[in-house]
């Protein structure tokens, strides 16, 4: 065997060391030293806003046209150019884009209620309280429940933007034909559904969503109505509580009787007339109205033995990247202020079906054109922030959704499945979050 010369050995070691250095330099910090969160002590009064920012959006609710319109007006008013980047087709893709290299230069990002928290954990979001104050944005006029969805450890990390809640939709023509009353409880939804099926007007009296269609979001209302929940703070025992079990046994018994589970989405099924009642996002209202060839009725979400119909908040907010310069951050805050002005919020709501995030928005024009929209706005008084298990726990939403689908499409014991889910959620919390939140 040829003997390795000292020179070659040195060169080899150098190349290997450089490769190792390159690997560790590009990867995350593994030193184990927890970086202290930087205190934001910027004197915003001395900061001048940048003359351009980058806005990353997935154009929620088909909002590309209205976004462009509002952005153009913002540039005319302030002189700040806004480069728009389409960062994905949905909230998950946008979040993924922002967390990987693609989003490293974005200043304002659209992130959903269920996807912003990992970015917060990654120190990628700037707290917005002082920034919005410096940009003279009156945050007291935001709908409180919607703004507080971004509150964590005494700071807000976003402003409400494309916000929605689930809404109860029904086929008003069929209701009129059978003389049905608008339901206020889940029992009444079941009764109406059964009546519609028995009358031969439909094969599906109500459509539950599948795992791919945010079932854990809309079904939270059902669990709350029976006194259950997905979690209480970081305590996951609520998922296997009597209330949650009773609620999901009610739903499981209903499938095949007065209800079905949608293979696509409940709003698609409802708009196409496949089902007569459904719970879908307020953001789907415009789409449903455009395809339905029957009178669409809307109502508050149904309640149950334990609660009036509480509605989980949802949709997306506008976040500011922590990596942006103070000048860009200030310009981003001004941009958020513009997009959430009362008048602009009303126009955005009218174009998309999202609820207005500003309490001062005059929605009379919208109500005149789309009376169903009034229900969505009035229902905001019953809004409730979602449980941590769905929105803050990485993987929690998926585990929840898949178990809910298994319960709805199978005949397995509900309590057993929920107890298994509780264990899964607790393991997820321990492995993915506990060490970072301690």
């Amino acid at each position: 065997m040829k003997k390795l010369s000292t020179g070659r050995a040195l060169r080899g070691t150098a190349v290997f060391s450089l490769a190792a250095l390159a690997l560790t330099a590009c990867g995350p910090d593994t030193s184990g030293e927890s970086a202290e969160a930087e205190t934001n002590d910027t004197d915003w009064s001395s900061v001048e806003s940048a003359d351009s920012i980058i806005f990353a959006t997935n154009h929620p609710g088909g909002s590309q046209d209205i976004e462009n319109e509002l952005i153009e007006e913002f540039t005319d008013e302030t002189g700040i150019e806004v480069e728009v980047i389409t960062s994905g087709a949905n909230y998950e893709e946008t979040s993924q884009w922002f967390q990987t290299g693609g989003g490293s230069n974005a200043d304002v990002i659209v992130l959903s209620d269920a996807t912003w928290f990992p970015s917060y954990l990654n120190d990628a979001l700037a707290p917005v309280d002082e920034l919005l104050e410096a940009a003279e944005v009156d945050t007291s006029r935001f709908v409180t429940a919607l703004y507080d969805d971004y509150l964590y450890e005494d700071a807000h990390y976003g402003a409400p933007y494309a916000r929605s809640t689930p809404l109860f939709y029904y086929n008003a023509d069929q209701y009129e034909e059978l003389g049905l009353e608008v339901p206020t409880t889940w029992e009444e939804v079941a009764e109406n559904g059964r009546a519609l099926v028995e009358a031969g007007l439909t094969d599906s009296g109500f459509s539950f969503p599948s795992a791919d269609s945010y079932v854990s979001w809309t079904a939270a209302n059902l669990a709350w109505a029976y006194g259950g929940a997905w979690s209480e703070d970081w305590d996951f025992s609520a998922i296997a509580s009597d209330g949650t079990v009773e609620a999901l046994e009610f739903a499981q018994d209903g499938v095949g009787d007065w209800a079905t589970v949608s293979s696509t989405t409940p709003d698609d099924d409802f708009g196409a007339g496949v089902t007569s009642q459904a719970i879908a996002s307020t953001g789907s209202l415009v789409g449903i109205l455009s395809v339905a060839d029957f009178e669409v009725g809307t109502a508050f979400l149904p309640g149950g033995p334990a609660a009036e119909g509480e509605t989980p908040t949802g949709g997306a907010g506008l976040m500011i990247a922590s990596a942006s310069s103070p000048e860009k951050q200030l310009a981003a805050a001004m941009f958020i202020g513009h997009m959430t002005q009362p008048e602009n919020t009303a126009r955005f709501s009218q174009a998309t079906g999202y609820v207005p995030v500003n309490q001062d928005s005059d929605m009379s024009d919208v109500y005149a054109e789309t009376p169903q929209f009034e229900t969505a706005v009035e229902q905001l008084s019953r809004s409730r922030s979602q449980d941590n298990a769905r929105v803050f726990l990485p993987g929690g939403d998926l585990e929840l959704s898949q178990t809910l689908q298994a319960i709805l499409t199978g005949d397995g014991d509900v309590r057993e499945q929920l107890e298994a889910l509780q264990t899964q959620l607790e393991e997820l919390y321990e492995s993915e979050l506990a060490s970072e939140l301690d």
Partner: protein
Amino acid sequence: MAIQTQERRAAEEPQTPADPPTAPDEAVLAVERKRARRRQSSKNWSLFLLFAGPNILLILAFIYYPLISNMYYSTLDWRLGSPRATSVGLDNYIRFFTSPSGVEVWRVTGIFTAGAVIGSMVLGLLIALVLNKKLPGRTIARTAVFSPYVLSGVGIALVWNFIFDPARGALSHILGFFGIASPEWYLNEDWALLMVIIVYVWANLGYCAVVFLAGLQSIPQDLIEAATIDRAGPIRRFFSITLPLLTPTVFFLLVTNIIFSMTRAFDILRTMTPTGHGTNTIIFEIYLQSFGAYQRAGYSAAIAVVLFFTLFVITAVQLRFVERKVHYQ
């Protein structure tokens, strides 16, 4: 070889006594030869770097660097996008091989790969046998059969979503005509897996058919004719002549189809079943773990390394053992 012979001849040629070599001359010659060798070697290296250097750099930057980086990330407990991580050694690998979800991934991958490879190859061979006949319009038929292979996987999946939709899809209408209820393709894990296998086989069929067709056309016709004269029927001719002579093609397709089904089905799987309910093959699991709900970049990197070595081993085993059974003409 020629150079060596010349050198040997030169060494064997007798030196003339009138011109005896001197020690300093030999030393000078040796140095000259060494210099010439160095110059040649340097010239060869320069040429090599000039032609191959850019490609080597690209391969190092875009294949080997990410591969080695990924191996490093697989030893970390790292959430996607986080600036911090913890070194965990081989824990991610142990977790993948011992957790129930890891076992489920292997089960799904095995069923999908077997279904996709066998389905594509058997149907591809049958279509190739038909297209090998002198039928009118066979050029158009060949184009039609091959075209799905060049279509975008996302486009294919979207179209098949319309077909499989149990409420409004074309298939449910056809089944309804015969009084059969549509299966719950999207809600039942087993049906969902069958659904994506069907779509993948449809998309991959053209590739197998065209490669088989090329193999069939390389079989000498005189062998077939001789067998026909000897009164061998079509089935006997197929199993005794056609299939043995097709073994190189079968072998090639087997290797490429296994690799493709494990790596290139992602777009169809992701579009038709976004959260991977029962369809999380290993390539889809890499995405779901890292970019999906869990954000486990380190764990996902470990699964990617496992996939890399799985394909490496499958290919090596096939080359080592299966190729022996292949009949080359």
